[in-house]
C-alpha cells in the first residue's frame, strides 16, 4: 500500500491506489481542512499542495503520490498559531460559511510560493477556479494581497460588490 507524506509526517495508508487523496485525508488521517464540494474538480474546495503546487485532492489518486510531499491547510498553522497567510485571512474576515476557505488558502499559498508578489490580475487568475458561494471574493482577494505584502487594489472590502 502506498506511503503518504502529509505535512511532514509519513503514513502507511490502507486505501487502494485509485482512492482520491481527499478521502484518505479526511477518513483515514482525520485532516478535515480540505472539503468535499463537487467531487468533480470544478469548485476548488478540496485544494491541497503536492510538491508545493496546488492540486484538486478529490481527483488525485493516491497512487501517483508515492514519495511526493502533500501539504494541507493544517500544515500552514493552527488556530492558536496561524501561519502568515491564515492570519491575513483572519484579519480580512475573509470567511463567511468558510467551506471554500481551506481550498482558497492552499491555492493562494501555492501562488505565493511561486510568485511572492503577485499583482491583482495574477491573484485573480490563480483563484479563478476556486468558487465561493457566499460572495466573500473581495475579502479573499484582499487577504491574499495582504499576505503578499501590499494593499488590495480596490479600496474598502466591506461591500463585496461584484466588479
Amino acid at each position, binding site marked *: 500500500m502506498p506511503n503518504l507524506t502529509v505535512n511532514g509526517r509519513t503514513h502507511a495508508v490502507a486505501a487502494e*491506489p485509485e482512492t482520491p487523496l481527499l478521502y484518505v485525508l479526511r477518513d483515514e488521517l482525520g485532516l478535515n481542512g480540505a472539503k468535499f464540494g463537487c467531487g468533480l474538480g*470544478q469548485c476548488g474546495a478540496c485544494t491541497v499542495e*503536492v510538491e508545493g503546487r496546488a492540486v*484538486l485532492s478529490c481527483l488525485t489518486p493516491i497512487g*501517483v503520490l508515492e514519495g511526493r510531499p502533500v501539504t494541507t491547510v493544517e500544515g500552514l498553522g493552527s488556530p492558536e498559531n496561524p501561519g502568515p497567510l491564515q492570519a491575513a485571512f483572519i484579519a480580512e474576515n475573509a470567511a463567511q460559511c468558510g467551506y471554500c476557505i481551506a481550498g482558497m488558502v492552499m491555492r493562494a499559498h501555492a501562488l505565493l510560493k511561486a510568485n511572492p508578489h503577485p499583482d491583482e490580475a495574477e491573484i485573480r487568475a490563480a483563484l479563478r477556479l476556486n468558487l465561493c458561494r457566499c460572495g466573500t471574493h473581495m475579502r479573499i482577494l484582499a487577504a491574499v494581497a495582504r499576505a503578499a505584502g501590499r494593499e488590495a487594489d480596490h479600496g474598502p472590502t466591506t461591500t463585496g460588490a461584484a466588479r
Partner: protein
Amino acid sequence: MQRRRIAVWLAAAALASAAGLGLAAWRPALPPGGPSPAETAPDLVRQGAVLASLGYCASCHTAEGGRPYAGGRGIATPFGTINATNITPDPETGLGHWTLAAFTRAMREGVDRDGRHLYPAFPYTHYAGLSEPDIAALYAFVMTREPVRAEAKANALPFPLSWRPLIAGWKLLFVRTPTIPGATAPADPRRDPEWHRGAYLAEALSHCGACHTPRNWLGAEIRSRAYAGGVADGWWAPPLDRSSPSPLPWSRDDLARYLADWDPLHGGAAGPMRPVVDAHRAVPAGEIRALAAYVATLYGPGPDGSRTGPVDRAVATEASALTRGAATYAGACAVCHESGGGAAGGVPYTTPSLGHRTTLRAPDARNLILVLRDGIAPRDHAPGPIMPAYGTLLTQAQMTDLAAYLRARFSPDGPWPTLDATVRDVMRDARPRDPQTRDPSPRAARAGPSP
C-alpha cells in the same frame, strides 16, 4: 581557375535572381485615406461583425488579455514566430489610413498599404475567394472598432525568411484564387444553396483548410490532399475527409451541434478549435448549418466500413504500467468520464465514454497529452465544459501510463509507437512557473504551420 570562374558565375546568377525577385516583388504604396460615411453604414458594420466572427479574425489579432483587434499575438510556425498586427483604425499603428482599396488588396493579395508583402500566416490564400461586398462589410466592421495605439511586435524570423520580397516568390508558387462552386467557379447542380453557402464560408472566410489540410515543406497547403488533416499551434487538426479516424460518422446535424457548442456523441472542441466554436456564438444558426452541410460532404459516406464504432474493452492489466494507468483513470477521470454522458444525465459536456472521442484514435497522443496537461478552462459568463489541468500533478511517467491505458481501452488501433517522445515533448513546458523545467522555446519547435 575553372572552378573559380564557375563560382563567380553562380554568385552573379544568384545576385541577379535576387534582384529580379526584388523587382518583381515591388508593389506600390497606396494613398492614405479612410472610409466614407457610406462605407461604414450601420447595416454594413453589422454584416461585417458576423463575417469577422466567421473569419476568426480575433483569434489571431487579439492578444491574450489584450484589447480587441489590437494585435500582438504570436503565431508559432515552423519557420519562426509571426506577430499578428493591430487592425484597429488607429492612424499611427493600425489601419487608420487604409482605404477600402488598400484593405481589399491586403485581403486578396497579402500586400499592406505600404506595399509590403504579408506573411501567409495571414490566410489571404483563402480570403482571395471572398466576394467584394463581404470585404466591404469586413472593412466597415474593422474601421469602426475602437482605435488602439499598439505598435506591432517585430516577427522572429531568421534571414532570409525575414526578407519580405521572398514572399512574392512564394505567392507565385502557391496563391491561386480558391475554387469555390457557386462563387469563384460554376455551381454544383447536385447541391443546394445552403451547401454552396457553406462551401464559400469554409473555403474563403473560415479558412478551415489552413489547419485541417497538410502543408508542404514551404508551409503551403497541399491542395491534392485537402482536408486530410494538419496541425495547429502544436495540436493535431483531424482530417475532415473520409480519412477521419472518428469512431462515429459525422452527419450534418452532428457537425452543426459541434460547431455551435457540443455534440453529445462526438464531444466538444478543445485547443485551437475552441476559439472557433466560441466565435460561432455571435453567428446566426443558418450560417453554422451551412458550414456543417459542406463539411459533412467532405466526410462523405465516411470510411469504407472497416472502422468500428466506439470501443471500450477490458484491458489486461498484468503489465504494471497499465495497472498504474488504470488506477489513475479510476481516481482522476472516471468520476466524470464514466458518468454516462451529458445527454443521458451524466456530467455535462461528457460523451458516453472516452471511446467516443476521436482524440484516442489519433495517429499520436499529442492532443490527449495537451488536454491532460492544460485541462479545459471554463468560459467567462457562459456555460461550457471545464476540465482540471493535470500537468502539475502527473509526472511524465504517470502521464505516459495513463495515456497508454486510455489508448488500450478506448481504441482498437494498438499502442501509440511514439508515446514516450510525445509526452516528453508536450510536458516540457508543463510547469511554466518552474524555471528548472521550463524550456525557452518548445512551442515554436513543436508547432506546425499556422494560418
